[in-house]
């Protein structure tokens, strides 16, 4: 009787004392195994292309004299959206220059462009696949949830173990974190193309592939562009975190300012990121509204 009472007492007060799930150890083991197994693979096959694209983009951006850069920003903003956006872009970039973080901004911009390039390269096909197979999308959904909700700090460590310190692990973490919107919105955009267009294409004997490329994809373009815009914003929000593992640019400015309690330095980096984000946002939104499928929406 006494024993039973003691057992129940323990069960009520500390039901978790009975089982010790060795999850920490398990994950440590798994990550160690992954690192040991894939380190060579990732350093030979993943790092070089990522680093190559990054240095290519950075080289290209660096080769443009800042004055020309401002001019191009104006033209791009004007063409994509309006002259206001063009003027805003020039003012924002000029401010960044006046604050003395132009070179850091170029690095950050290169990081973002590179990350977004890989997000699109991988995300677009995955999004198309998701839209065409319910089963594949059912598999993708939890993966996307994990990619978006896992705190980035958690996978910084394995990223470093796999790719060592520097821009590359920062880029990999950024790509993982920023890719979901491209996949989700490509899938959504294609699935939401009005059935009457599909029916019309079918009635004229189109194959599934023709329907995808001639009808669904162009009509999904505004939605896909919205996804791209989100991806760019997410990539920018990762640059500070990526600085912790050695990525350079404006994020490093913020991180270094924090470490040295130099509030001014941290804020300059932060303002630079905000300005860059706003310019990129306005331009890509403008591009989204220019997308072909946007014509006569809602008419």
């Amino acid at each position, binding site marked *: 009787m006494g024993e039973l009472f003691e057992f129940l007492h323990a069960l009520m007060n500390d039901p978790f004392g009975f089982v010790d799930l060795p999850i920490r150890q398990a994950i440590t083991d798994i990550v160690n195994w992954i690192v040991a197994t894939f380190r060579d693979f990732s350093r030979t096959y993943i790092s070089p292309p990522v680093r190559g694209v990054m240095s290519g983009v950075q080289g290209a951006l660096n080769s443009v004299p800042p004055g020309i850069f401002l001019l191009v920003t104006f033209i791009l903003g004007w063409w994509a959206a309006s002259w206001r956006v063009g003027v805003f872009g020039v003012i924002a970039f000029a401010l960044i220059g006046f604050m003395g973080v132009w070179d850091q901004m170029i690095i950050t911009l290169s990081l973002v462009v590179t990350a977004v390039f890989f997000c699109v390269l991988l995300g677009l096909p995955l999004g198309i696949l998701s839209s065409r197979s319910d089963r594949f999308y059912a598999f993708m959904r939890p993966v996307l949830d994990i990619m978006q909700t896992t705190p980035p700090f958690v996978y910084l460590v394995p990223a470093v173990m796999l790719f060592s310190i520097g821009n590359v692990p920062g880029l990999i973490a950024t790509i993982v974190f920023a890719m979901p919107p491209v996949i989700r919105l490509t899938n959504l955009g294609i699935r939401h193309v009005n059935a*009457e*267009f599909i*029916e*019309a*294409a*079918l*009635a*004229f*004997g*189109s*194959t599934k592939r*023709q329907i995808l490329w*001639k*009808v669904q994809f*162009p*009509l999904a*373009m505004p939605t896909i562009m919205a996804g791209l815009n989100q991806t760019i914003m997410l990539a920018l929000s990762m640059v500070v975190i990526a600085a912790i593992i050695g990525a350079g640019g404006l994020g490093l400015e913020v991180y270094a300012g924090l470490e040295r309690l130099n509030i001014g330095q941290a804020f300059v980096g932060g303002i630079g990121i905000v300005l860059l984000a706003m310019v990129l946002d306005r331009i890509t939104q403008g591009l989204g509204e220019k997308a*072909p*499928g946007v*014509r*006569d*929406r809602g*008419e």
Partner: protein
Amino acid sequence: MIRAENVTKIFGSDPESAIPLLEENKTKDEIRELTGQTVGVNKASFDIQQGEVFAIMGLSGCGKSTLIRCINRIIDPTAGHIFFKHPERGELDITQLDEEGLRTLRKENMSMVFQHFALLPHRTVLSNVGYGLEIQGRRRQQRQEAAQRVLDMVGLGPWGRSYPSELSGGMQQRVGLARGLATDAEVLLMDEPFSALDPLIKVDMQQELKRIQRELHRTILFITHDLDEAMRIGDHIAIMEDGQIVQIGSPEQILVNPRTEYVAKFVEHADPTSVITASTIALPLNSDQFVSTGERDGISYLHRKDLPHVRFGMDREGRLHDVQVDEQDVPVRRLEEVLEDDDARPASSERTGVALTCGEDAVLRQILRSRLVSTLPVVVTNGDGRVRGLIDDPELINGILEKRGEIP
């Protein structure tokens, strides 16, 4: 050209379960209650001749849109057969075609026009018209030329570079029609093509379609919920109710002899003046209303009892020779010509100064209008020019008052 045999479409989780119940002639509602399946189309059979416009008329939800989609199998019928007379390969059963065969059929032999146009908003008008040709794999140059030709035909020649959103509804549907015509498919499926248009534009488009059809002689399956439209456009009309075809016939047959209550209710409000033809209302020559007044030089004369001063002379073959009013010859003209040419219309004081002849297929409306030109009886002639009968005021009035009788 197209022959449908007991085409049936049942929507639901287990369509097959409803088939035996249909055989027992259970109604749509009973079947839904018993099996949970919804009958879309119930054993529809019809035969569309080459070059005709076959209209399927019914209220929304009667299954007409489902039926037309069964023909090109955008919706797969649950049971039944659809035979298509392929110009080269003989008779095909569309329900037995595989993916590839079906695609070829849609590319080459059957095109479609949609209620809400379904033009691709990201393509120009010309590129929309050329879509079917693109799928056929024609070269760019060739398909642009062909698309431009069809665009000219629907009266939108200069609009090729515009986008659909820049066009009005009527113009957009002209583009839809042009896209359907561009592939030279023998069969054109039109799913309520003019229902989304304003009433005035709608009538315009109906005339446009008739004009184009006179030129191209396509086989057209035309869906509509508007009986007047069906009567104006269709050579034959099938009336659908609750997934079933309840009557098939020429517009006039349906108007004069509605087979069910449902059809009769529709027909009640139809406009008879554009459907009833001269041959239906004409007083036939063998009627006892006519009095023969002898023969002269091989021409035999007769007049109506109530109109002795108007005499009609016919030769031995029964062709109209002359018309006399009070022993004086009056000029004889074709009713169709007089209606088209306003200048030929004499002042009202001369309305007995000209006699008119019309074909058997002239409709009531035309004959009524001709009364503004001539008040003499209209002579109805057949294709060979032989006189079939006369139409005077009593016949016209009976026709307007929906004379329901036999069709000769």
